[in-house]
Every structure is written in C-alpha cells, then in structure tokens.
C-alpha cells in the first residue's frame, strides 16, 4: 500500500491508515541505524532494530486487512497493535502496542476518522502509553513527543484548522518535543539507570514517535517536517 497524500482530505479511511503504516515502516527502516545510534548512547542499542522489525510486521498486518469491510478501521489498528506487541521487544512493544490498541477501541465503529475523531483517538492512544509506562512529561520518554503533539492537534482544531493543518501542527510539535528531550535527565526507562549521563542525547522513543507523526501528517496531505 503506497502513500498517496490527499491535500484537503477531511478524514482518514482504512486505506489511508494502511498508507500511514506503510510510510512509517519505510521511514523507520530508513532511519533504523540512527535510532539505534541514539539508543546506543543511553540504552542497549536496539531501538532501531526493534522498531524496524516491529514496523515491518505492522505493515504486513495492515496490508492483510480487508479494507472494504465495515470494521476495517478498528481491525487495522488492532492488528497493527498485535504486530508491534509481539515483534518490537523492549518497552516500545507494549507501549506502542497499547497505543494502537487504545486507538482501536476509541475508533469504535467508525469507518473513517475525521480531524475531531482522530484527536480523540490519538489522545486515547497517548493515555494508553501513560497507563502502561507510568511516565509523565519531562522524564525523557516518547510521551515528551506525544503530549505536545496531541495538544497541538487540539489547539489547531480550536483555531479552525482542518485535518491536514492539525496533523501538520502535531508533527511539528512532535519534532520539537523530541528535540526537547535532549537536555532532559531520564527518570523513566532504561536510560534512567544512567542518571545525569542520559542528558545531552535525544530519547530514541521520542525520535521514533516524531517519525510516526511526520508520516501521519504526510498521509493527511501535509508537508511533514524535516526530521
């Protein structure tokens, strides 16, 4: 399923979600070595490898969905969740897996996700990450990219932005959130074992999150960000 950005799209269909996962798989694959490098600095040097394996499985899972069926949207999100849970390893598997699981539940019976519904669905996903990892903002985790992103999405909508505008705002905020993790001292996750030594490096989870948000924005017809 190749990516076909649709400027001015008002909702993401199951096919669009499939395109997002495909694009995310390709983008993660392209940057897997860099993600691993980040993780080598403050972790166990496997985030890139883990995410590449997980996203390949996620793309295969998404490609296997019957896009014409009524429940294709939640079904796709659930299958992506299961693929990530079983193939990523580390904490990112349960975290990203729970993110997509909660998105699937929040999507309910929707056959497409408009800007407002997506805001709710993404936020449900982020709450899943919080519930699973018990992190809050500022602990140098993927939340430091997700939280600003969903805030930016909501703010864009309140300002009258459409889906494309909201997704772009979220991607920009996600990248800024990722960049802000560089100065942070980790108080969650494996990097927290390094204490002060974790400062001065980007958080790998926040970096892969920024990639997911960027590809989501491009799928929604936005320009995306320079990562």
């Amino acid at each position, binding site marked *: 399923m190749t990516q076909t950005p649709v400027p001015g799209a008002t909702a993401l269909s199951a096919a669009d979600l499939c395109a997002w996962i495909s694009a995310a798989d390709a983008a993660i694959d392209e940057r897997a070595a860099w993600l691993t490098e980040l993780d080598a600095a403050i972790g166990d040097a496997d985030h890139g490898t883990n995410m590449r394996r997980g996203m390949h499985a996620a793309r295969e899972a998404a490609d296997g969905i019957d896009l014409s069926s009524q429940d294709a949207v939640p079904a796709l999100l659930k299958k992506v969740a*299961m693929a990530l*849970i*079983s193939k990523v*390893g*580390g*904490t990112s*598997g*349960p*975290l990203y*897996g*729970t993110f997509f*699981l909660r998105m699937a539940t929040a999507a309910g019976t929707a056959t497409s996700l408009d800007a407002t519904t997506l805001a709710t669905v993404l936020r449900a996903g982020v709450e899943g990450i919080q519930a*699973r*990892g018990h992190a809050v903002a500022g602990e140098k985790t993927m939340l430091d990219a997700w939280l600003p992103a969903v805030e930016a999405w909501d703010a864009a909508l309140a300002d009258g932005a459409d889906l494309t505008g909201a997704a772009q705002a979220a991607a920009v905020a996600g990248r800024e959130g990722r960049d802000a993790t560089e100065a942070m001292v980790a108080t969650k*996750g*494996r990097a927290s074992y390094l204490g002060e030594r974790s400062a001065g490096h980007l958080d790998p989870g926040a970096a892969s999150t920024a990639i997911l948000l960027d590809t989501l924005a491009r799928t929604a017809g936005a320009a995306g960000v320079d990562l």
Partner: protein
Amino acid sequence: MSGIVVVSHSAQLAQAAVDLVQGLVPGLEVPVRVAAGLEDGGLGTDATAVLEAVQELLDGQGPDNGVLILADLGSGVMSAHTALELLEAVDPDAVGRAVLSPAPLVEGLMAAYAAAGTGQDFEAVQAAAEQAAQDKRLAVTG
C-alpha cells in the same frame, strides 16, 4: 490448583528460577509456564506469549484458583500488564482470575509455588507472594 506464569527478559533466568523453586520443594507439583525472552533467543518479553501462557493455565481451572504472574522488571511488567489488558478484551470473565504479583521474581515465585502446591486458594497464593518482599527484608535485617 492455581498456576504460575514466570515473565522475564531472559528465558534462562526464568527457567533457572523455576528449576530452583522446584528443586527446593520437589514434593510439590504446580502448573508453571515460562514466558521469557524473544523468539530469536535475545533478551526481552512478548505480551502475546504471556497471554498464551495465562490462557493455557486458566483453562479448566476451578473458581477458587487462578493464575499468578511473576515478572522481573521494566518491560517484563509492561508485557504482563498488556497481556492482562488483552485477556480482558477476549475473556471478560477472566478478570481477577489472572493477576500480576508485585512480588520480586525469585522470592515471590518460591512463596506462590509453595502456597499453590499445598492446596491454598488463589487469594492465599497472591498474599503469600506479596509477603515475600517483607520476609526477605526480615531475613536480612533480622
């Protein structure tokens, strides 16, 4: 009889813990499953493997019994929690019958195994595991 699932990043560590406990109380036989390590033999945990192990042990259990999960740390705990979330989605009746223990891995496993193996009910098995941390402290500090 209640069952136990051992979750760890390391398949070797989990199996060694089980071997230790079974070696210390060879007269007891408790259903145990290990859900540890990754498919390629590397370090890590897989919530779908944890779920499968839990479901295997839950199958055919009576109402006073359940499945206690002992996990190591970090993503071990997250995978166990994720497995319980998945279980609730597919089997709402199983809620409360599979529980993740807050106990440390080895000490909790020993206490839970002994409680289950001597026929105590699931509540008692959970309590025994929870008591393990305090018992360890007492053993060390006197």
